[in-house]
């Protein structure tokens, strides 16, 4: 696939989305810092967004062949909004956690462990 001469298609976007998604998952798994986990979630949501936009894009597929149409963009908007809401709650939880444990290391959140 020669990207510089071939037209860009949906699958190109899907690959980018997949990479963002995977890095997000890895980030969530690997990071011990609660904020790092949050950033992983943002990356995952972002990867999903790329897919939504790609499927709904008239540029990539043509008006006719576009699978989602405007729905794709609308979904992306909703995802962005909900990501903001999610971040707010998660940050509040992190803050509370920090207030109680004086750290943001998620491995220390084992109060409920039997």
């Amino acid at each position, binding site marked *: 696939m020669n990207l510089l001469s071939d037209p860009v298609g949906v699958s190109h976007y899907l690959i980018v989305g997949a990479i963002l998604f995977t890095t997000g998952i890895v980030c969530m798994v690997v990071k011990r810092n609660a904020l790092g986990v949050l950033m992983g979630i943002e990356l995952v949501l972002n990867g999903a967004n790329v897919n939504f936009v790609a499927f709904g894009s008239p540029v990539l597929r043509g008006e006719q062949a576009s699978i989602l149409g405007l729905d794709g963009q609308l979904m992306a908007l909703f995802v962005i909004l909900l990501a903001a809401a999610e971040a707010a709650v998660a940050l509040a939880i992190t*803050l509370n956690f*920090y*207030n109680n444990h*004086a750290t943001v290391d998620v491995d220390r959140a084992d109060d409920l462990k039997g």
Partner: protein
Amino acid sequence: MSQVIDDDPRIIEFDVRTDEMLVNMGPQHPSTHGVLRLVLRTDGEIVSEIEPHIGYLHRCAEKIGENISARQFIPYTDRMDYLAGMNMNLGWSLAVEKLMRLQVTEKARHLRVLISEMGRIASHLVGMGAYGLDLGTFSPFLYAFREREKILDLFEEACGARLTYSYITVGGLTADLPPGWLERCEAFLEQFEPIIREYHALLTTNAIFVKRTAGIGVLSPDMAINYGCSGPVLRGSGVDQDMRRDGEPIYTAMYDGYAFEVAVMKDGHYPRDHAYPAVPADAVLGDCWHRFFVRMLEVVQSMDLVRQAIDQYSACKGPLGEPVKVAEKIPAGDVYLETECPKGQMGFYLIGNGSAIPWRVRARSSSFSNLSVLAELCHGCLIADVPAIVGSLDIVMGEIDR
């Protein structure tokens, strides 16, 4: 914003568990008026504790005074409060004269009043302009300096120096005024009078200025007295004391025949000797705004005194009188005298042992006492209030460290 609860400033309502931070403000900091160093214990923007560190401008002035004659010490007093050198000269000269039981001529007396009140205007102009600078407005600073320059020009004509005058000296003054000086001085006052309204517009009544100063750093009269505050800081808290009226006879005698009202709030209002803006509703007696406002009132008061002094001085015939010799012996005995300097009560203490050189010289600096309330005033204030409070105390490091 968090607020201080009860009396213990260390209990602060936290939104987040935060750690305290120690911040060094100064000695190289734009708003510490020279080389003051403040160590702030802050929680975010809120200052919970503050401690001034001084001594960066210590020059052993007092010890030097014990090795030179009383008149030779005059230039060193210039360098104490270097913004009001004339008043420093006067304080030391009067103290020595008190020990020597010296009486200056009537003409010299009036000239001293004239010059020292001009010095007070110059000093308050700097205080006012620099205060604006502390609050983030640059222009009033230069407007103040523009007028101060004119006063310095007049001083330069009179004594040849612009900052370290050594003009008032033991036994009188080093020289009489040059011809035409009084007219130029009057012309200056004439054109300066309307400019004060500009200062009021730019600072005193400016909404943001009032917001930044009213109710900030409230110094109660009791606290002010307990800490030995003096000058505009004391009067800003509503304590009616002015050395020019309440001081020792040798000093108050200088102001015999002068009419002036001490700029202090009594019965809920300031002396109604001229038109000035009303006190804003949210200003509390003893806050930064009142300290600043007292200075502004004193500028007008000093202008009035200068006018009176010009009249009295021109009415005086006869010679100005000669100052004492440089190596004049001073009698044995000790003497302490406080004068009303622009920053507050500046006291000089000296012990003579019969030789020309004082055996002991000490200075009591008003800025030093005024600075000592800083820790009390800054409990629980914001970082931005620290320059506002320090500026309203109008300290000069040269006087504190000596």
